[in-house]
């Protein structure tokens, strides 16, 4: 009867009554409102993972031929490329930051230095593409990831369609950025 007093809504009453019968949590009225039927776990996820890795690295078993045995699919390659471009871009940003701290001159000085080497327009365009394409690809595939995060676009056909859209948009955007 104390349960009915604590949780007013009719839906909760049946739940709390069954929980009360099992003697979990609700026996203490101060926990009644926010209580869930929680069973304490024996180990944490971290502990489980560590045990797995400790056991498997100790046994020196050969690694499954996951990269050589299976067909390289488009979504798989795009995922690898997303990670690769991410690491590459982050590395580039860090390199620029370290250079700013370490190198003696200022930015216009180094830009003029590159100017004075007088590369042809083709090489300059190529260098710009080298920056623009990874950036556009990572950004567009990032949007694709965010769409997955809200739960949309997981059907195989949708995965492939969005993948091709990302590649197409990346190529168009990077060429547009280089040519402007």
């Amino acid at each position, binding site marked *: 009867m104390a349960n009915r007093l604590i949780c007013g809504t009719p839906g909760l009453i049946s739940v709390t009554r069954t929980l009360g019968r099992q003697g979990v949590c609700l026996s203490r009225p101060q926990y009644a409102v926010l209580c869930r039927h929680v069973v304490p776990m024996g180990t*944490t996820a*971290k502990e489980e*993972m*560590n045990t797995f*890795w*400790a056991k498997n*690295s100790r046994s020196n078993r050969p690694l499954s031929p996951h990269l050589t045995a299976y067909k390289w699919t488009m979504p798989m390659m795009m995922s690898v490329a997303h*990670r690769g471009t*991410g*690491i590459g*871009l*982050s590395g580039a*940003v*860090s390199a*620029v*930051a*370290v*250079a*700013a*701290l370490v190198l003696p001159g*200022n*930015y*216009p000085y180094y*830009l003029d230095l*590159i*100017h004075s080497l007088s590369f042809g327009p083709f090489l*300059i365009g190529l260098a*710009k593409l080298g920056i623009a394409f990874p950036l556009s690809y990572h*950004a567009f595939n*990032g*949007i694709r*990831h*965010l769409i997955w*995060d809200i739960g949309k676009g997981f059907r195989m056909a949708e995965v492939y369609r969005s993948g091709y859209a990302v590649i197409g948009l990346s190529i168009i955007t990077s060429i547009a*950025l280089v040519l*402007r």
Partner: protein
Amino acid sequence: MAAIVRLSSVCRRGINRNLVRLTVFACAMQITQCANSLLILALTAGSASKAASLHWTAERVLSILLLAMAPVAYYNPGPVMDYSLAAALTLHGHWGIGQVLTDYVHGDTKIKIAKAGLFLLSTVTFSGLCYFNYNDVGICKAIAMLWSK
């Protein structure tokens, strides 16, 4: 710190350069410590899974923010965008590489060493970008100059 900044704005080059570098570094450390204490608060308030879930959400929010910053930086370049971009870029990279480390590095000590190295790299990156924004042309202007080449 404000006094040091004012001093160094008067005499840009030479002796105070290292002092500015140090204060920028200290600033970066402060901000990351702030973020860490927020995380600890989440951990004590809820549980480890709650903190992980919050982290996941924060990563997505930051990604959206960074995407939005690109057109804003193009149409409104300036010091505000420079510093916001520096912070968002560094944090996004830090969390991203953190996920890569979680995937490939196993074993408690190795994880600890790798995460420490990443923290150092991100702190240096943020300090370097802030230094560039303060003592040089700034990120937005730099990209504009590079692209007009």
